[in-house]
């Protein structure tokens, strides 16, 4: 039986409600939330925190999620009262310090991506995608090109890509990948035409390999009048080395909570800044920070960018996350950004070789890994019925977070593994030792995996019961 906050409730007197508000508008019964003592609150949530895996306590090789160290200095700086207590509607003259930070971040992200202009406002990758495809839609509309309804998206793309395209009013056409991981160019050619709005790509792709014909793809899509959108989820693989702007992309988002080391926070908040080529600048989401000739900084609004796709949240976006990303980038500087991708690639390629050495099968053995790679345990499934999920759950018993499993879906029984650059060789070597042991267990004692995890607060949970009973609020 888990400890519930509702178990800590002390009787307190009712609060008298104001008499100047009509009774019909007031609460009829006291607010039925528990009244625990502060020490009870502290212990309850501290104990809950101890039931979590986290980067601070465990290796977290979660593919596509870039679970790198979140530098504490960034957290400390974002919490400075001069930032934390700033009301969003403070006039610009009262927030020049914040605007300076945001303006610099815009400039640096533009330099890093090879793009002309940046808006920091999207709250997460998916909102950045929505902003990106909305800009593509607005661009075509501004050119009187209203027939471009189709958005091309690889089958292996993140689920947010088709969902965002759909929310922006596009029809999604999925494009398959070839056996070597690259895009099917023949299929692409079949779908290029006057109804194409653009294509959404991740590069390196979700298959953990670099799309080698990207400039050719860009030429063909542009030739058909379409634009290219870059999903920045895998930017860590090429940071400081390859710029999406030079690959031919017109618009992109950056996941600052991945590449720029801001925390994932148990699901968010992130930040999904968008960067665009010059021709899309008029359509950027608002607000954007601008520097006047005299050096003063201010927010741009609808009067400055009348063709903007508009606003995505009530204020400037996830400012506290942007402050953290700025601190990280400032700490790394021009020499540090290239090291990110270099060591991310080194860790991934080293881990791939070592895991192959102990018997695991790579999905794309002929290809160089990017910052992540895919293993398939189809061989184990054929031999003993053990699935990728079982390997993942057994890893938890060793104090290692599971890799991403069953994504991308086109590789059967896959594990998508991303170590990130902030893990040491010793951590990777221990992971290899554990994975080798799990492989032996799979062949010799498969039930050990099927019943894993054994050493966590709970074992595998009954998800069907959860959905059927739908106990989503309680404590009564």
């Amino acid at each position, binding site marked *: 039986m*888990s400890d519930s906050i509702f178990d800590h409730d002390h009787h*307190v007197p009712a609060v008298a409600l104001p008499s100047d508000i009509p009774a019909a508008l007031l609460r009829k019964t006291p607010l039925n939330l528990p009244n625990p003592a502060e020490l009870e609150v502290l212990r309850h949530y501290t104990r809950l925190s101890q039931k979590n895996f986290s980067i601070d306590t465990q290796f977290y090789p979660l593919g596509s999620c870039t679970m790198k160290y979140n530098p504490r200095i960034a957290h400390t700086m974002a919490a400075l009262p001069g930032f934390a207590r700033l009301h969003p509607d403070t006039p610009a003259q009262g927030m020049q310090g914040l605007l300076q930070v945001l303006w610099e971040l815009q400039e640096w992200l533009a330099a890093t991506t090879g793009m002309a202009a940046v808006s920091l406002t999207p709250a997460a990758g998916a909102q950045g995608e929505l902003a990106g495809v909305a800009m593509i839609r607005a661009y075509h509309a501004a050119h009187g090109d209203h027939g471009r309804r189709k958005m091309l998206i690889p089958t292996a793309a993140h689920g947010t890509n088709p969902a965002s395209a759909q929310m922006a009013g596009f029809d999604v056409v999925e494009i398959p990948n070839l056996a070597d991981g690259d895009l099917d160019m023949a299929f692409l050619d079949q779908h290029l035409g006057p109804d194409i709005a653009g294509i959404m790509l991740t590069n390196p792709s979700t298959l953990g390999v670099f799309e*080698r014909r990207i400039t050719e793809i860009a030429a063909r899509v542009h030739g058909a009048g379409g634009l290219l959108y870059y999903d920045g989820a895998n930017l860590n693989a090429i940071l400081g080395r390859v710029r999406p702007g030079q690959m031919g992309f017109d618009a992109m988002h950056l996941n600052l909570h991945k590449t720029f080391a801001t925390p994932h926070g148990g699901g968010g908040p992130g930040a999904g800044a968008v960067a665009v080529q010059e021709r899309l600048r008029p359509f950027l989401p608002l607000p954007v920070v601008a520097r006047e000739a005299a050096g003063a900084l201010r927010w741009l609004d609808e009067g400055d960018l009348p063709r903007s796709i508009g606003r995505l949240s009530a204020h400037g976006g996830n400012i506290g996350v942007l402050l953290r990303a700025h601190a990280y980038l400032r700490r790394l500087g021009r020499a540090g950004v290239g090291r990110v991708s270099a060591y991310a690639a080194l860790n991934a390629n080293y881990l791939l070789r070592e895991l192959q050495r102990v018997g695991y099968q790579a999905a794309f053995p002929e290809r160089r890994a990017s910052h992540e790679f895919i293993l398939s345990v189809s061989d184990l499934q054929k031999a003993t019925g053990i699935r990728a999920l079982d390997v993942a759950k057994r890893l938890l018993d060793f104090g290692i977070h599971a890799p991403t499993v069953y994504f991308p879906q086109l590789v059967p029984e896959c594990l998508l593994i991303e170590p990130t650059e902030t893990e040491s060789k010793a951590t990777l070597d221990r992971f290899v030792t554990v994975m080798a042991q799990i492989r032996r267990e799979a062949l010799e004692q498969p039930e050990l995996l099927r019943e894993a995890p054994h050493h966590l607060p709970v074992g595998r949970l009954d998800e069907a019961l959860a959905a059927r009973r739908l106990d989503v609020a309680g404590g009564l």
Partner: protein
Amino acid sequence: MPYIAHDAAETAAMLAAVGVERLDQLFDEIPPVLQVQDMALPEGLSEMALQRELEGRALANAPLRCFAGGGAYAHHIPAIVWEIAGRGEFYSAYTPYQAEASQGTLQVIYEYQSFITRLTGLEVSNASLYDGASGLAEACLMALRIQGGDKSILVPENLLPGWRRVLDSVLGLQDIRLVSVPYDRATGTLILPADAGDAAALIIPQSNALGLLEPVDALTDWAHAHGLLAIAVVNPLALALLKAPGVWGTQGADMAVGEGQPLGIPLSGGGPYFGFLACRKAQVRQLPGRLVAKTVDGQGREGFCLTLQAREQHIRRGKATSNICTNQGLMVTAATIHMAALGGYGLQQTAVLCHERAVRLRELLAGVPGVSLPYGGAFFHEFVVRLPHAAVAVRDALLGYGLLAGLPLSDWGMGEAGDLLVCATELLEEADLLAYRGALTSVLETL
């Protein structure tokens, strides 16, 4: 090398294992023409130098006593809230897809959902959306899915304009029509529309952008009488005092959405905050975003997991209820701890204090020569004062007194040039209120 552990010997050993000599060779599948060796970035800083630089930037933001609201509010946050929310096990964890390794985050979300359902009087709450405004856009899309067909949304003209602009951006992408509902210029509150047209839902803000309380029972009943869904837009702290949306009118509102920032989230220049969205259980399959349920493991032990994931983009892709993936998780953790730390009693007490401070300030400001009160209706903790000069000029002059005096309604294209929306919270003591009156008196004398 900041945040990278490898020494030269380790790097060499790893390169040898991979079968290359230099780090650059790891990128040999990328066309050389695409690779650059330098970027226009500043040199890196030591942590010490970085701290010095950013502390300077933080000090360049004026420290102001805050009398501004408009959707973001200055409240006291108990020290334990971020002490615990900032623990690495919460701060640096991923989305709780691996339930066994995420029971802490999952139970926190379950408790959060429980608290939100009690505040709103509805049965289900999701695990958060980006902010109140984007949450309202999602609520409208949800209402359209429930109602089916090609319908519009009724949007009050006294909804916060920043929220309206988000609706324009997000719903506009799907060519959804937004039909404005006017408010009575004399009372500041909504006028019941003559007919509902083809609307799927009516948005009901409590409080509205002028800080005034709306006749929510009548509005909810009107919506239901015309076959519309009622979407309540509420301040969660105000719900400690005000009638819960679930019991508005005879049937209750169908959805409640709002900005969660008043629950333990720093102002932080505008974010990160979080949006909450609650609904009836019958409509849970149209709810966007993550949802946590209680269940058991193979040994019958109680545990928590994400549920009904077939609504979400990682399963349903283009047919999902929303594209949302990353939400505002850590803000929800902080809000949950905040609500527990204050308790039901503390939340009610805080809300009452906010109201009393606002009543007192309104009375003080009304006594300043030339200042009048355009609206007489009931309010929670925000109200409009009408100044004898442009509110923008008065607001700017009061910055010199260390006060952020409020929000000029002219910035929103509402009211008259002299209208200033003023907010008071529990943070402001009598001395602060008197200081505001004194400063305003001086400024009005000199303008």
